[in-house]
């Protein structure tokens, strides 16, 4: 199966019909229709209906369609789920996750709603959003809490507020949560997504941050504007050189297997399991982007 890419997750305000209509044309890997922070308390009801209708009518292209619902502790979260679950919904992004129980509660509701709507059980995945000290501390438990989980991500603004930290361009204040999110994602076998980069005019800053999170091992990043897509996709797309090298590694290992040889070398360097794993990851990415 082709790997699902999650390089970019584009937030779209849930109460803006124009932006929702056009959200599919920019080529973001995921679209996150936002019922939470982007919607004022007085418009929670109307945007819920708007997003429900949009999910049934708007063409989101090849993008994965995600809705960020309101936290289950608010009066809106459960109603959001009832309204939006439908065949086109791929995932729910659950904000303010602090404990594994938050995920299990959502899972239970989804089990029921999917059955009521005649959908296959598990068709809607969960993307926990961690944005507090407690959530960060429990990240591994949260990521492992449900087989529905597909990607764990974090919100930098709320998290730094909770930590008493300052948000900076360089992002030293996010070092710990980034590592925790990655750790949790890898233990749970799901994707790790980075927080948004807020300054739209600072392309260089976005480039540096994207290179950093790719280096760390993240699979992608949430974004707030379509013009951030190209740059992030470029960073995450393996270069021709990387792809060729990965190919040669896989060829070498297959050749060695045929010869039943235990030790494999390429260009005088030993190829061991982690090198092969990395090469496979590069090729899977390249395939998903359509480069191989």
């Amino acid at each position, binding site marked *: 199966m082709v790997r699902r890419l999650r390089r970019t997750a584009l937030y779209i305000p849930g109460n803006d019909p124009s932006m929702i*209509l*056009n959200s599919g*044309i*920019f080529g973001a890997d995921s679209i996150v229709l936002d019922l939470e922070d982007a919607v004022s308390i007085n418009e929670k009801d109307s945007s819920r209906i708007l997003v429900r209708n949009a999910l049934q009518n708007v*063409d989101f292209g090849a993008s994965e369609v995600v809705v960020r619902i309101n936290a289950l502790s608010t009066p809106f979260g459960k109603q959001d789920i009832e309204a939006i679950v439908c065949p086109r919904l791929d995932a729910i992004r659950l904000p303010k996750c602090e404990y594994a129980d938050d995920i299990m509660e959502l899972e239970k509701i989804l089990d029921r709603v999917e059955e009521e709507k005649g959908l296959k059980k598990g068709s809607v995945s969960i993307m926990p959003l961690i944005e507090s000290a407690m959530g960060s501390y429990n990240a591994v438990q949260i990521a492992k809490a449900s087989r529905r989980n597909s990607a764990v991500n974090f919100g930098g603004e709320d998290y730094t507020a909770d930590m008493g930290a300052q948000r900076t361009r360089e992002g030293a204040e996010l070092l710990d949560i980034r590592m925790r999110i990655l750790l949790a994602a890898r233990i749970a076998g799901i994707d790790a997504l980075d927080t948004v980069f807020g300054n739209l005019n600072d392309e260089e800053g976005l480039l540096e941050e994207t290179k950093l999170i790719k280096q760390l091992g993240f699979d992608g990043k949430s974004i707030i*504007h379509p*013009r951030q897509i190209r740059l992030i996709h470029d960073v995450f797309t393996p270069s021709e050189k990387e792809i060729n090298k990965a190919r040669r590694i896989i060829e070498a290992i297959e050749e060695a297997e045929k010869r039943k040889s235990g030790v494999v070398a390429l260009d005088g360097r030993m190829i061991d399991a982690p090198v092969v794993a990395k090469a496979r990851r590069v090729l899977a990415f390249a395939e998903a982007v359509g480069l191989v």
Partner: protein
Amino acid sequence: MNLNTIGREVPGSIEGIGTLRPFEGAFKRIPDGVMKAPKIPCVERGGDKILPSLKDALKEAGLRDGMTLSFHHHLRNGDYVVSMVLDLIAEMGFRDMTIAPTALFPVHKSIIRHIESGVVKAIQGSVNGPIGRLASNGGLEIPVLLRSHGGRARAIEAGDLSVDIAFIAAPSCDKYGNINGVGGSSSCGSLGYCMADAMYADKVIAITDNLVPYPLYPVSIPQIYVDYIVQVDQIGDPSGIVSGTLKITRDPLRLLIAEHAARVIEASGLLEEGFSFQTGAGGISLAVAGYVKDMMKDKKIKGSFGSGGITGFFVQMLEEGMFDALLDVQSFDMDAVRSLRENQGHVEMSASYYANPHNKGCAVNQLDAVILGATQVDTKFNVNVNTESDGVLLHGIGGHMDTAAGAKLTIITTPLLRGRLPMIVDDVITVTSPGETIDVVVTERGIAVNPMRHELAERMKASRLPVVPIEKLRDEAYRISGKPENPKFTDRIIGVVEYRDGTVIDVVRQVISVS
């Protein structure tokens, strides 16, 4: 009623306009006959041409009922001249004028009053929103005759449009009638659109708020064409004449369209040393220019010229050495006015030089690529820029059909939908530019190439551009919005769209209900 070659009904003649010649193809009409010549003039030696008042000038020019008066729009939405002249004519009690403006703006809404009172009987040239709406509701006895910039110059030179008195709004003028647009508090840059008027009208009245010592230089309109000069306090409101720096759109959807359009140009193979290019001043157009500029820099190539209405963006490209010259028929902003005044490579051109198909060569014929807009495009690639989806005549033609016909590559950029309204439809309500002159239509949801341009389509596919049949774009628009109903019209013709060669490409009918 006859059908022209694109299947539009054209009556044999219309009262108040005369015999109509149906459109037969963009490059089919071979003109015959001779060009019009104005009367041989004679002035006394010495002295000046300054008259005490506009009223005196009108009297001297022999103003009578039923004359044809021409105006130009270089002062855009700051223009005082059209209203000044028509208000005075009304006050003097004259009636039944035909006005021939190069374009109209919201500031000219007083014309409505003069139409209703019978001072203005007909319009040849251009309309804008409120006046077009009036026409669409049947408010003009004689249909509006719409012409492009090139077509209007052709009509004047061929004698189809015979101007009795031309009014020149003159930002700078000397006592003997030399005029330019680059000095004075009402400076507007190029005076390109009114040059044919000055050369061919029986009488020419210059109205100025900046009388300078003789001889004025540089000269845009020379003394040999000007009969009378009138001094007034102000010919226009500077804040409405030139805009501030025009901004490239920030709307991601429009930027996506612009980027696609730029990549179409790159894929076409035309983006080489000596590239020539025209865009409008709209947000998408400027964004395309921005992308093209970056591509030219990357490829280290220099363009030959940019043309049309000139913006600061093109001026910057000239100043950075990315174009050898700018050919300027109207200057949109302060930078363009300054550049026309200071830079030898920034050249003023007349509407005839720019776009008249029946002279010995116009600038659009030398264009590699042009970016144009549309209010509708149909699956035959016909473009409408005159009527809106509800059938109301709201816009003039500008240089649309001229540049589309002249340029090697004509690209229409448009969102697939405006609001709910599909921009790609089965049949446009009004044909402005025929499909045979349109090469590519770029939307945010795909790019359609005219099937006549097979090789271009192949080049674009090779560049991995999202090329789709135009029918697919129409289907997509109808799927999102629903199939539009046709607006309802009466049989009465309220507008005639003249093709640049003088044939009739389409007519516009009165709408039944207008909200």
